[in-house]
């Protein structure tokens, strides 16, 4: 067992070290992103968060926006897990492991985004249960720290177990996998719900203090997460021998269409409630779509584009002809991805803070440091994801197996 693990690790290193030119270029690009991000973060850690454009009125912004978006991406792995394991539905089952790898990468990026947003990263240990002083059960941020880490661990365990089983050429033990998978479903819902509640629970920010915020988070996550996977699966089956059937992609796309419809409905419900009741709290959504205090809003363009992209993507996915056409489907994926990214990164946070609790307006745009650090984190996350996918592909397709390693030595894999 230990020897097999050693062989697997050595074999995996061999796998990720080899590839075609496009692979090398991609990895080099991601490494570059990561390195420049680390350099930017080094500056930020030395000088302070003043290098960001966050200020007292807008105290969470680009970092936490990205964090929120990625929590959704990570949570969406469950979208694929549910039918695959509960209903033992073959076509999706073979690709589910990629959903879990995506969740791992997303969680790692989430935790990095939280870390770079902290004023005192050196005090991270205050968040560790028993060592520090977690404020449970009251603080949603404490809960978030717990559930994100548990979810990360869970996906690490499931994915590595599945891959390692494939490496050993054995079928996984359903008595281990099924309970874990079943547990991961409420966990996936929790991470996004808890993150939504983090905003939702703040009565100080009426824009977030809406009961449908958590359902909206889930609905949008079920749009954006699978959108990443749909594109990934096409890349995988084109570049490798690994076969993913059209049927599986169309099924995922169909499930996405429902989620998108529901997401739009919830967004519409929120917009209706704000504009029809027309209370003092309307200012925040006005800041998103038009402007306040007699001035046009600099983020109105994002408010409208998120809405427009969401509507068009929904139309593309709801009509079977365009859903099953790969060009329009991919277009729809990009659009919904863009829509949810804008919605979480800008449309959720900035209007929540604008105007601030005392009615003052601070116009925020991310600073160079924030963009660089964020690009660095995406670089690290995508790099991790790329390497994990490469190993998973090699194992699941039977190229990297214990038998092959034993027979030919690691070099031959």
């Amino acid at each position, binding site marked *: 067992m230990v020897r097999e693990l050693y062989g697997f690790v050595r074999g995996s290193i061999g796998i990720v070290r080899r590839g075609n030119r496009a692979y090398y270029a991609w990895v080099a690009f991601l490494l570059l992103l990561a390195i420049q991000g680390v350099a930017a973060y080094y500056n930020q850690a030395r000088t*302070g968060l003043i290098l960001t454009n966050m200020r007292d009125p807008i105290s969470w912004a680009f970092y936490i926006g990205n964090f929120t978006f990625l929590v959704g991406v990570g949570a969406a792995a469950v979208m694929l897990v549910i039918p695959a394991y509960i209903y033992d539905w073959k076509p999706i089952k073979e690709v589910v492991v990629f959903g879990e790898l995506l969740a791992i990468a997303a969680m790692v990026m989430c935790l990095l985004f939280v870390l770079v947003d*902290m004023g005192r990263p050196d005090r991270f240990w205050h968040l560790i249960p028993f060592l520090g002083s977690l*404020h449970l059960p009251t603080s949603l*941020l404490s809960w978030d720290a717990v559930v994100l880490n548990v979810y990360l661990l869970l996906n690490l365990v499931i994915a590595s177990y599945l891959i390692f089983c494939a490496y050993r050429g054995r079928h996984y033990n359903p008595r281990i996998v099924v309970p874990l998978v079943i547990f991961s479903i409420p966990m996936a819902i929790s991470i996004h719900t808890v993150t939504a509640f983090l905003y939702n629970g703040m009565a100080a920010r009426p824009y977030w203090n809406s009961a449908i915020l958590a359902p909206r988070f889930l609905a949008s996550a079920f749009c954006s997460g699978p959108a990443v996977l749909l594109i990934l699966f096409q890349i995988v089956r084109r570049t490798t021998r690994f076969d993913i059937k059209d049927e599986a992609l169309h099924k995922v796309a169909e499930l996405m269409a429902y989620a998108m419809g529901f997401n739009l409905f919830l967004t519409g419900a929120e917009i209706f409630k704000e504009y029809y009741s027309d209370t003092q709290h309307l200012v925040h959504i006005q800041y998103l779509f038009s402007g306040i205090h007699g001035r046009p809003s600099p983020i109105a363009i994002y408010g409208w584009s998120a809405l427009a992209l969401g509507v068009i993507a929904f139309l593309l996915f709801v009509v079977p002809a365009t859903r099953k056409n790969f060009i329009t489907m991919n277009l729809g994926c990009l659009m919904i991805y863009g829509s949810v990214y804008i919605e979480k990164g800008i449309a959720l946070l900035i209007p*929540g803070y604008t105007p601030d609790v005392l009615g003052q307006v601070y116009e925020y745009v991310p600073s160079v440091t924030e963009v660089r650090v964020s690009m660095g984190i995406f670089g690290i996350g995508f790099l991790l994801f790329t390497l994990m996918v490469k190993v998973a592909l090699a194992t699941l397709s039977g190229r990297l197996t214990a038998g092959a390693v034993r027979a030919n030595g690691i070099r031959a894999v």
Partner: protein
Amino acid sequence: MNDSEQGTQTKIGRRDMLKGLAAIMATLSASGCTTTASPDLDAFLQQHFWKLSKADLDAILARLEKQYAEQFGRPVAVKATPPLEGVTFAYALDIARCIGCRRCVYGCVEENNQSRNPQIHWITVLEMEKAKGVDLQHADAYYDRPLVPEPGRFYMPVACQHCSKPPCVKVCPVNATWTDKDGIVVIDYNWCIGCRCCMSACPYGARRFNWAAPRLPADELNTNTEYLGNRPRPRGVVEKCHFCIQRVRHGRYPKCVEVCPVGARKFGNLQDPKSEIRYILENKRVYILKEDLNTQPKFYYYFGI
């Protein structure tokens, strides 16, 4: 960059992290041990305020006094005065009388050692139109006039409202902020992780973040300080009004009360039926900012005239 706490952070990050983790375990297993050889490491390993023994706290205060004395070149007293028994502090501010002169804002900065640059003010004075009443959407915190009060306007200073149900305390993931027995909402600057969740949760915009290492000229330092109050803060933590703990727990009025030229600011013990604060609550028309949020502030606006 003369902030040695901040130096601690980066140095720790590079060198002492592993050593630190090992020492955490050591500290946990041998809880009698309160200090190590390195003050940086002591700062890093410092436990939560509630878990500190008298000896732990004394060691921390001594360490901070030494650190501040080195940093500012002057002796600095850091006390940790416990809350007074039988006292619940409360504040009242007469909106009818405030003229918006901002004397309180700067008096507070001097008393409480706020960073001069990047500038930190704990009190925000809002200028509003009398015709519109308390409507924050028309409030201006940046008014710049030759003379105040401006006819037709009124002024509303806002700082920490010391809520009885503070949302900021509720959301803090690490218990770095809490309500002391005398009703003051305090922050342990040595425990705050700088996540700024409390800043989003506060409906009054009372909390301020140290976006960079605070700059405070040594000759402007108030050397009479409290651990949970006005001691110099490190970079990357949140701070706010604490009713001048260093004054009120020794019987004195907060600084803003004493610098207000029009006597619009009132302070006292809610449990004392003869206090000014009780007189105001019983005899004046009181206004609670964002009362609908049920934060139950111990900061009351009132109309004295």
